């Protein structure tokens, strides 16, 4: 019961940090392009402004699905981000919650796809098919890289167990074993696709299919979808930062850091990971085509995840 209360209490925190991360991402992206860029709190302005706009549902849309999909998408992705945060704060977790988190994040993407394709717009349909293809490409390596955690002794699929093991070993998980390093690489390689960032933003390519699924959304629905995306990006970078690179574990007096210090360190790590896996690629690459992206994911990250399983079985 307490956990559930804590979960809902974390919602505003997740809301704040996911929009803040998005703001920082946009600012740094702009600076790398020699632009001044929007203020860091621009996503908050955007959210408030969009929420005060008129609600419009196209005549061709299946209005029920069209209106419910953004709400579900936002809720599940915030929940997906809240679970690791609460677990880290309370220091408890249940077995298998990592699978739950990944499921919630995938669910949020699926909801956006369904909402877009229910709009009756052909671009929404193309966006659906492209996102579907992308999900097949990146979800499998991503799931395998998380699942491989449980192949090792003393790790499990419970989120806090992995964190606790890192504290006990006084080391970052990615540097403990070869297989874990491979798993971390796979997870990080899947990040830009999961975050819909260039070069893998094929499903909502602005100049090709006019934002695909988002094309008919406006006002509060669009605000919710954007929030859903930001929250799931935050959840992903936070997961990567705590599962594979739990920096507080390196400090001798772990307890002396306190809750605030621990969280701060985790958030900073998450920010760095976001910069490296989302902001930098989206500044220095051009968008790939769907076939090229699919080929990349099945050639590199999938092969890496297979290697990871093989290494785990051998015991490296």
């Amino acid at each position, binding site marked *: 019961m307490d956990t559930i209360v804590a979960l809902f209490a974390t919602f505003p925190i997740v809301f704040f940090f996911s929009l803040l991360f998005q703001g920082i991402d946009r600012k740094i992206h702009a600076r*790398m*392009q*020699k*632009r001044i860029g929007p203020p860091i709190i621009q996503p908050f302005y955007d959210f408030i402004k969009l929420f005060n706009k008129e609600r419009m549902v196209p*005549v061709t849309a299946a209005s029920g699905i069209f209106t419910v999909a953004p709400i579900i998408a936002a809720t599940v992705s915030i929940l997906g981000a809240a679970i690791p945060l609460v677990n880290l704060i309370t220091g408890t977790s249940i077995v298998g919650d990592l699978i739950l988190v990944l499921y919630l994040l995938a669910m949020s993407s699926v909801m956006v796809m369904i909402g877009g394709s229910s709009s009756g717009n*052909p*671009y929404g*349909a*193309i966006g659906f*098919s492209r996102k579907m293809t992308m999900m097949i490409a990146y979800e499998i390596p991503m799931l395998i890289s998380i699942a491989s955690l449980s192949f090792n002794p003393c790790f499990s699929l419970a989120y806090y167990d992995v964190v606790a093991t890192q504290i006990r070993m006084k080391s970052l998980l990615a540097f403990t074993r070869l297989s874990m390093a491979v798993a971390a690489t796979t997870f990080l390689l899947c990040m830009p696709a999961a975050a819909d960032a*260039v*070069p893998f*933003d*094929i499903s909502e*390519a*602005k*100049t*090709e*299919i*006019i934002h695909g699924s988002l094309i008919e959304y406006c006002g509060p629905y669009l605000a919710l979808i954007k929030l859903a995306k930001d929250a799931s990006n935050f959840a992903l970078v936070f997961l990567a930062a705590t599962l594979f690179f739990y920096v507080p574990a390196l400090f001798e007096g772990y307890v002396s850091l306190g809750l605030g210090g621990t969280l701060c360190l985790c958030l900073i790590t998450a920010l760095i990971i976001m910069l490296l896996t989302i902001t930098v690629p989206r*500044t*220095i*690459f*051009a*968008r*790939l*085509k*769907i*076939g*090229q992206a699919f080929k990349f994911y099945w050639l590199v990250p999938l092969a890496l995840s297979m290697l990871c399983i093989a290494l785990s079985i051998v015991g490296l």
Partner: protein
Amino acid sequence: MTNGSDDAKEIKEDYTRFRVPFGPLHPALKEPISFRVVVRKEEILDVDIRLGHVYRGIEALAENRNLVQAIYLVERICGICSHSHTTCYTQALEEIGGIQLSERALYLRTLIFELERIHSHLLILGLIGYDIGFDTLFMFCWHVRENVLDLFEEITGNRVHHAMNTIGGVRWDLPHHLIEKVNVSLKKIEKSTKYIYDVFQDKTVEKRLCDIGVLSYNEAQELCVVGPTARGSGVNMDVRRDYPYAAYKELKDRFSVVLRDGADAYTRTEVRIFEIFESINIIRTILDELPNGSIFMEESVLKLMRKIPEGETVSIVEAPRGELLYFVKTDGKGGLRRLKVRTPTLANILSLKPMLIGGEIADIPVTVASIDPCISCANRITIVDNDQSEVRVIGLEDLRRRGRKQWTP
């Protein structure tokens, strides 16, 4: 125009095909042009190109104005190659009137012309970057382009519509201290363009541009494409060399025509990048050899205008996008009887069909951008009435009638 409802019926029976409207409002297109693309999954099966969403009646307007007023009117046909339009128009008038320009005026005309080519090519390079999702390249190209726009402002006082040309000469001289400034800016632009060329050789960019929108040599000749689109397909044509005008008569041996035969979007991009280098060379030559003399005629422009006799001529120039053609017929009283403009985009736009068919949806924006379209001729409005599910087309006559009704008290 094809009947819309019949098309819809035919396509409804085949559920694997989609008809996707691409434009007239689309983030990848800067101007309204519409493609109706029939696709199966990602593959393009058929393309229907529809022009005519921005009819402005410039040719008809020009016939109601005198020759000098029309200079400023034709300048507004395009915001990117405004100087090409006025050059083409004024040199037609000068030919009819038998007016000889001073060498210095011709050289200055050519200088602005080549600066304009640089800024137009940088613009489209940026847009190609934007269309393949490479926003950084887009920002960088436009950042470099600012240098040229600043030069325009210093030389002519305007960034976009320079109002440089007039009958019998140019309106602004190039003082000595500006020559230095132009040289400094050229150095910057040359360095940045080299960098842009490096970026275009990046692997993700090449993946998006190579073997996309292929237009073979034969197709290019059959469709009479012009400019960098033709030169990218190996068609050796350049008005500057073949029919030299302005100062190109003296300069034609001083530059080379960039010719490639890759025939895809990447080659057309490459042609543009190397044309920027050629333009920089031409401008340097012009600055070195700028002759002395007056830049306009002693008589006033209005007097010159009244002296132009009745006559007709065709004038062509090599605009940044290709061959630009004007047919001018004067009435001998300082007015125009007929003005016909053939913009390079009109010559190039048909080549989009063979380029697009067989490609993917993802290739549409970059293929369209690779011919550097600049849409400016049209004749109708389409009205879509959803309640009665019908599509009406209102023709030019109808529009005129409505316009008159609106303005008659």
